[in-house]
């Protein structure tokens, strides 16, 4: 004997209700309500994503204290013009597709905060190289996309740059180098053995190599000293 509709389970009734025709709503009402609900959902979703891009959100976790302290000593935090780059400007892509991917991958940060992977200075130093390598690889693969949101070769006036900077930037254009090839450690301290690690990272991702040159791997300390000079 067939079951009567009332014998259906709650989920089954909900399913049938969901796919049943509306008896009391006009097409126009349904369309407009769906349109408005879509706007509210998308607006809320986007607002939430943007909220997670704020500096306050990024440094809200205990494990970000070391990062924050180092970043505050750089020209990206404090400089003569007052224009600065916050965490998300360098670590979260602007383009939607890449941004969502970065946000999903950032779930791992929550995990590591929870298990305390870098909860002490010692643990942080142990993982510093690993974390730096991950960011370098990401930037190398994306042609330093996030750097280029603010810095573009096309708009650099080499005539007002330091001679060496102008020369190196011209060489970077000529040889297809990208920002991170020289500017590692621009916002955070470099780990020990970073040059060898960077070379290994290039091998790991099959990145194109450049002809050996005496200045291919710049001494980042010099770059930082120059930028600190500009800042002060």
């Amino acid at each position: 004997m067939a079951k009567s509709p009332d014998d259906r389970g709650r989920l089954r009734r909900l399913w049938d209700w969901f796919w049943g025709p509306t008896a009391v709503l006009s097409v126009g009402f349904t369309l407009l309500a769906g349109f408005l609900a879509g706007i509210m959902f998308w607006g809320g979703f986007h607002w939430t994503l943007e909220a997670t891009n704020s500096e306050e959100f990024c440094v809200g976790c205990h494990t970000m204290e070391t990062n924050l302290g180092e970043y505050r000593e750089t020209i990206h935090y404090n400089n003569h013009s007052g224009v600065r780059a916050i965490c998300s400007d360098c670590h979260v892509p602007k383009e939607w597709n890449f941004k969502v991917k970065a946000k999903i991958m950032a779930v791992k940060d929550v995990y590591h905060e929870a298990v305390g992977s870098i909860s002490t200075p010692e643990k942080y130093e142990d993982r510093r190289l690993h974390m730096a390598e991950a960011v370098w690889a990401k930037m190398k693969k994306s042609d330093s996309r996030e750097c280029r949101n603010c810095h573009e070769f096309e708009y650099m006036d080499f005539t007002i740059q330091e001679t060496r900077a102008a020369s190196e930037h011209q060489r970077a254009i000529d040889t297809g180098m990208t920002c991170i090839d020289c500017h590692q450690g621009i916002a955070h301290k470099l780990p020990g053995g970073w040059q060898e690690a960077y070379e290994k990272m290039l091998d790991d991702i099959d990145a194109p190599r450049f002809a050996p040159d005496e200045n291919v791997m710049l001494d980042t300390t010099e770059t930082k000293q120059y930028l600190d000079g500009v800042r002060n």
Partner: protein
Amino acid sequence: MLEFLGTIGGNILSLPGILGLALGMMTRNVLLAGIMGGLVGIAETLIFAKMSFANVEPIELIVAIVVGIAAGCVGCAIRRKGTTV
């Protein structure tokens, strides 16, 4: 692994997932829905690669196409289940 999951999630919430689903809902033909979704996947990857196949990473292209096809098919299923036309 995390990067792969991120790529899938990014595509679901981007053109292949959303436009693919919408296009799929416009037809009862599942093959057509899948093709339209797949084309959206190709288009989206090209748009984000500045219209150059040289900038396209194969894994991202494949994921975008697969997500587009899946979204198109889901859209088609919604059309079949939810409408009489």
